[in-house]
């Protein structure tokens, strides 16, 4: 299973992902520039990503809690999500994400 990530410098990475892992965990494990301060508790918004528009519909919509955390980020766009709330599964093989500036360490 593959996760395609564009980092804050515009460099593209092809990351091997595992089913059941959070996209945040995959990126952190591969050493991407992601703070993920709270460790996946949907409590900090430092794993903010922009989802490739073509993939937006395949994701489970954000919960109220996730939207509330996204309120604490100054660089959100329409396709903003928290990557700790995206669980990797077969349908998301090849998912394309871009790390937001606000997630940088």
């Amino acid at each position, binding site marked *: 299973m593959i996760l395609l990530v564009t980092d804050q410098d515009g460099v593209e990475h092809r990351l091997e992902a595992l089913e059941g892992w959070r996209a945040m965990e995959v990126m952190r494990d591969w050493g991407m520039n992601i*703070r993920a*301060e*709270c*460790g996946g*508790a949907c*409590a*900090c*918004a*430092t794993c903010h990503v922009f989802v490739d528009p073509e993939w937006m519909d395949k994701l489970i919509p954000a919960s109220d809690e996730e*939207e*509330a955390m*996204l*309120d*604490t*980020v*100054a*660089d*959100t766009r*329409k396709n903003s999500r928290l990557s700790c709330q995206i669980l990797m599964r077969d349908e998301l093989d090849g998912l394309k994400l871009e790390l937001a*500036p*606000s997630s940088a*360490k």
Partner: protein
Amino acid sequence: MSETHITTDVVIIGAGPVGLFAVFELGLLDLKCHLIDILDRPGGQCAELYPEKPIYDIPGFPVISGQELTDNLMKQIEPFGPTFHYNRMINKVKNLDEGGFEVIDDEGQVYRCKVVVVAAGGGSFQPKRPPVPGIEAFEEKSVFYSVRRMEEFKDQDVVIVGGGDSALDWVLSLQPLARSMTLVHRRDNFRAAPASVNEMKELVDAGKMKLILGQIGELTGEEGMLSSMTIKTADEPINIPVTRLLPFFGLTMKLGPVADWGLDLQDNLISVDTEKFETSVPGIFAIGDINTYPGKLKLILSGFHEAALMSQAAKKIIAPEERVIFQYTTSSTKLQKKLGVK
């Protein structure tokens, strides 16, 4: 600036769960502690980030919330009478010629101690700065992350950004004295108290303030004083006049001044040994999420273990001549006396 300094055995920087438990372990060895924290209450991340969220991996507690854990630890360390200093950040740690350390906080208070324990987790909590180019130049002049003096906003074109209680509360407090008031938020949904949201919407309907759905775009101004800014919206960007900007995006953690104390760091974490959890500077220890060593896991329970071992080493520094007998709280009447149960 305080004239007198505080003298104690140990200064603990950070009053999160690990800093709190260190008071217990040090207390059993008769060492007195002062704790300093940038927040206004104990608990660190447990209190600030997830007070209501359940934690499942504290030994002996199948489930406990961040706030409950903090409350329990506060109760557990009560017998040792630690002193807390909140809303303060440590700026400097200096070695003293006669041994020990001088620790200075951002209010100028000086603490003299024999051992320093850094238990600062992810660093100090600071307001999130929006990633807007050039915003630094306006900070503390026309961009503020908190309101200290309301007069600062009188007859100004105020723009507040955010959708939480801080944003809404200050919209309502500052709107009567501002020349103009604009609230900017990314969506038409607020996590602030519903009464405040209704009050804000009434002001908008009455034409007394504006609500714009969007995000901060570019800032324009000279010598630190803002004059206008753009707001990125779903349609075209909007340009509005602004002389005071208040972004309220919550808090984030930064390593902060710790980086300048001459401690060996690795990826913004403090390197320690795994026998004493001592840093590269003898007498300064680092425990909990802020330290690193081979195999480190950022777990509260690991921090507790580190606190226990650190305390043994701290005791040897503070009272080298004293022979420490290892005892259990279950059986030692001496320890039970210290805990106030005998």
